[in-house]
């Protein structure tokens, strides 16, 4: 994958992303409790990613300023791919400014807006979730989010299940 200026390719657990300059990014998988099965998650943000975060960015989105963006991609595994929620959209979707809505946030934070897209690729279901720090800046912030999303590659063979 070609590197964007200032970016560094992260490649782990079936996901790879090339965060542009100024982005924090991580690909992780929560330790599973007994009988539980966890899947990889990618987080990226134009602010510092705190050590303690929820999968949908709680703990991180509170830090977003009016020029900031948070992006999460959550793997839901192969069984989700065929369900109605995930089967309607194939491939990693790009985002449009009007898709960001305050009511799409996991938790409402004044001034912020979010978007959630469920999709499938290569036999697995995924959720793309993004939050922008200011709905008033949604046009340039959507472009920032798409720059990150455009560098995302999903290769389930690398998950190692």
């Amino acid at each position, binding site marked *: 994958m070609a590197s964007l200026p200032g970016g*560094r390719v992260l490649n*782990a657990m079936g996901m790879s992303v090339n965060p542009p300059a*100024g982005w924090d990014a*991580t690909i992780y998988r929560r330790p599973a409790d007994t009988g539980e099965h966890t899947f990889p998650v990618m987080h990226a943000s*134009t602010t510092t990613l705190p*050590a303690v975060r929820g999968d949908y960015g709680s703990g991180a989105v509170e830090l977003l300023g009016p020029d900031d963006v948070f992006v999460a991609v959550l793997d839901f595994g192969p069984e989700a791919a065929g369900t109605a929620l995930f089967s309607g959209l194939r491939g990693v979707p790009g985002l449009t400014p009007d898709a960001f809505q305050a009511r799409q946030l996991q938790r409402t934070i004044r001034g912020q807006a979010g978007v959630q897209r469920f999709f499938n690729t290569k036999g697995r279901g995924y959720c793309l979730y993004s939050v922008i720090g*200011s709905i008033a800046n949604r046009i340039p912030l959507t472009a920032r989010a798409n720059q990150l999303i455009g560098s995302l590659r999903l290769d389930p063979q690398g998950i190692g299940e």
Partner: protein
Amino acid sequence: MTALVVGLTVAVALLGLLVAGLLRAHAEILRSLHQMGVELDPSRQQPGPTPVMFRDSGSTGGGTRPTPARPDVTDVIDLTGSTPRGDAISLAVSGVRHDTLAGFLTSGCATCRGFWDAFHNADVDVPGGARLVLVTRGPEAESPGAIAGLAGSATVVMSTEAWEHYDIPHAPYFVYISGPAGRVVGEGAAAGWDEVKGLVANAVADGTTKPAEPAGTGYGPARSKADQRRDDAVDAQLRQAGIEPGDARLYPTSINDGGG
């Protein structure tokens, strides 16, 4: 017989002098290395006297460094590697609003132990609000399990590439990077966290952690005069309309909101 004894005595004396000379030279080498901050004996690791230094904020790059392989202070890279838990991670250090204090530590050095203990909990207060990131060599050189035990909830990036790029001479070693300026503004070693914190606090107070930002970063003084005039005009108009910074009308929750 007497001649043989005398000869042997002279030989032993000469060899004794030779050994004494070698021991003295060895001690001088060790003392010199110690003064440079390098401790070869892990059982008696003492803090090196090499201080954390902060450069003149007026410099725009090209300042001298204590190590030769990375002479350009603007040659910074993001901290990219893995966490002790095996996650992939990349933390931005340039082109961002925050500063970063990167602490290069190992699991084996005794001086590092004090830093690990100080950083075990994530709530470490760095003067000036810089983000503290601990950097170890990669999993091929350090045990992720051992690092996880030492680090606790502190942010750790395991990256041999970062060690080599920043040309880290020994551990512990700290590099202070200005995010808005995208350059190293200070680096060195110290005895303990309190000493590092004190030096960083002094540098923050002196303003040396806030060098001029390169043009086009979008932060503070890098804005063009035309942009600044436009911002000032908009601010004046908003104030005339009774809208001050923080006014709720500046943060609509939807595109239909805001009294339009």
